[in-house]
């Protein structure tokens, strides 16, 4: 009896479905539906074109990470000097956990180190970090190095 019920249920839904398909075949599709469909197809083709473009041009090269200070944008707040450092990945693949170390050797022989980490640096991407010193970086000898990064 239970199976009979289940069979009746699915039979009903199937006939409903067939009716839906037949009805739709007759009514055709509205301009609105064609427009949405056309816009959707254009969007998807656009995506495929962009992905193809990126795969063709953007190389699969390993990351090449470079850091350079931006002394013109340095700020002096209280006791500290904030020196922005621009980090660029010239390669194609993403570099993760990019560690940048900055060292400042004062003329009086003192030395100070600063370090920051960027989580992600995609191929071709440029991001900024800030090195903080207590002495004025423009007065001493500054070295900025990319210490390490991970890549897959």
């Amino acid at each position, binding site marked *: 009896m239970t199976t009979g019920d289940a069979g009746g249920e699915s039979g009903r839904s199937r006939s409903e479905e067939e009716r839906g*398909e037949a009805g739709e075949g007759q009514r055709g599709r509205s301009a609105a539906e064609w427009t949405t*469909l056309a816009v959707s197809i254009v969007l998807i083709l656009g995506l495929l074109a962009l992905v193809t473009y990126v795969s063709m041009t953007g190389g699969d090269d390993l990351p090449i990470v470079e850091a350079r200070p931006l002394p013109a944008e340095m700020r002096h707040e209280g006791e500290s000097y904030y020196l922005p450092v621009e980090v660029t990945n010239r390669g194609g693949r*993403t570099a993760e956990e990019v560690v940048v170390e900055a060292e400042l050797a004062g003329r009086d022989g003192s030395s100070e180190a600063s370090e920051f980490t960027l989580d992600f640096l995609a191929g071709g991407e440029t991001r900024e970090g800030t090195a903080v010193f207590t002495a004025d970086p423009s007065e001493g000898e500054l070295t900025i190095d990319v210490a390490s990064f991970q890549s897959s």
Partner: protein
Amino acid sequence: MQQRQGRSGSWGKELQDILRAVSGGFIFATPLLYTMEMWWIGTTAELWKLLLFLGVATLITFALARSRSGGFKNETSRFASLEQAVDGVAVGLVGAVIVLTVLNRIELGDPLGSVLGKVIVQAVPLCIGAAVANAIFGPHGERSRAGEESEGEGQSAREAFVADFGATIIGAIFLAFSIAPTDEVPTLAAELDYAHALALIVLSLLLTYSIVFASGFGTGQHEQQGPFQSPLTETVLAYLLSLLVALVSLALFDRFEWGDPLGEMVTMVLVLGLPAAVGGAAGRLVV
């Protein structure tokens, strides 16, 4: 049903279908939109793998649209299902671009490859969510609560208000609680400037409206009079309640401390306000 759709015109019906797709997409995808690993995968994974993933999502959408209870339109023929699969992917792509832009995950000048990766990977859950919209909202957009209509007739305006009020809060808690304790909230809040915060409010309101609408306004089933009973007031009230839920969740999970700058607290509430609003608007479906 057919007559009503005939009167509202084919553009109105198509808009309704697309709104239902968007609503289903966001209800399903919001937790993943607020997952930083998803942003990272978009940057690190190879594009062809992500495209393959989107292709699988398209097939799933097609299969779900073929079934009686899936999809976001009211048809199950092969062509209509294909159409829904294509539209679903497009809804996912556009939705992903908008949300990632508003949350400041992508911006002009970012490398194209990483932007594409993030968009494609977030389009997948949005697309699958669109494909289950009918299962969430019911195929005709009526509220899927059983016996709602007979209950509704006996409801006074005050009872209807209390029911919607409670539904919104419970729905908002549903989504906000799973996101409130995570680090995504402060991370997103930290990078949210004024323009992005405004855009976030607008997007939250639009999504609330879309879900309120998809969940059955305009079907003539909901005719009680009460403060929640017009789509616009319902949207604004639901959003404000959702912000309140976001605020309380963040406080309960100890994400605030005394003396935190007010601006940071406000942006965190706004950031969590989007999932809370999506959940709150969808709340009336689960209660």
